[in-house]
């Protein structure tokens, strides 16, 4: 397994190679924070595969991610390579139906 150092290039590659990426505390199956649980729950409801990255897997992860994305808190949701926001925005856009549209557009080329 190649080493992962949370550089901007490496992070950029993750969100370019995966239509939907959730950076979160823990995993969708075992979230370690209520906000991450909420975001993972929302994204799971979209019914499309998504990538999740556990930021607790490496002590460098959270600061590297913040500096790269400019978004201070976890979780962070990316769709189609673009930062959507945290769990509050994910839920808001899901409730309005916009998240479903964003996900459908991003995954249509998969």
């Amino acid at each position, binding site marked *: 397994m190649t080493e992962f150092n949370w550089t901007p290039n490496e992070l950029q590659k993750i969100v370019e190679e995966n239509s939907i990426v959730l950076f979160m505390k823990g995993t969708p199956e075992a979230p370690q924070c209520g906000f991450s*649980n*909420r975001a993972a729950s929302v994204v799971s409801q979209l019914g499309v595969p998504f990538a999740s990255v556990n930021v607790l897997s490496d002590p460098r992860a959270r*600061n590297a991610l*913040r500096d790269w994305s*400019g978004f*201070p808190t976890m979780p962070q949701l990316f769709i189609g390579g673009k930062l959507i926001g945290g769990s509050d925005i994910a839920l808001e856009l899901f409730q309005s139906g916009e998240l479903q549209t964003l996900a459908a557009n991003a995954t249509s080329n998969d």
Partner: protein
Amino acid sequence: MIHFIDRLQICWPIIMAMAGADWVGSEIKKLVPGAIVEVSDLHGTGDHFHVRVISDSFDGMLPLERQRPILDFFMPHIKSGVVHALDLKCMTEEQAKAAGNTVFDPHGEGEKQFMGIHIRRPKEK
């Protein structure tokens, strides 16, 4: 130089005391002039906040655009650990009326917190 150090020592406790719901609210009011700002200190510990920011200036803006100036301001305070959680709801007045209670406690009790959508955790060993 000595004078500067004196001032620093005096300032420290004031800075520490400022981290709290009042401080969060007053800073956000500066960032979004004219907004109604409601801050809930979720645990009474002065570091987990749910914040409703209500302003018609948000009309027509994407959710992340609405949060951006607030997030940028709190970035260093989140990094330093002064603020641990910042759950933001940036709404227009109409949205606020329709939203009802939006408080969400990430470390709250049990599944009732999860607003109808929930992932089952694997049983703990």
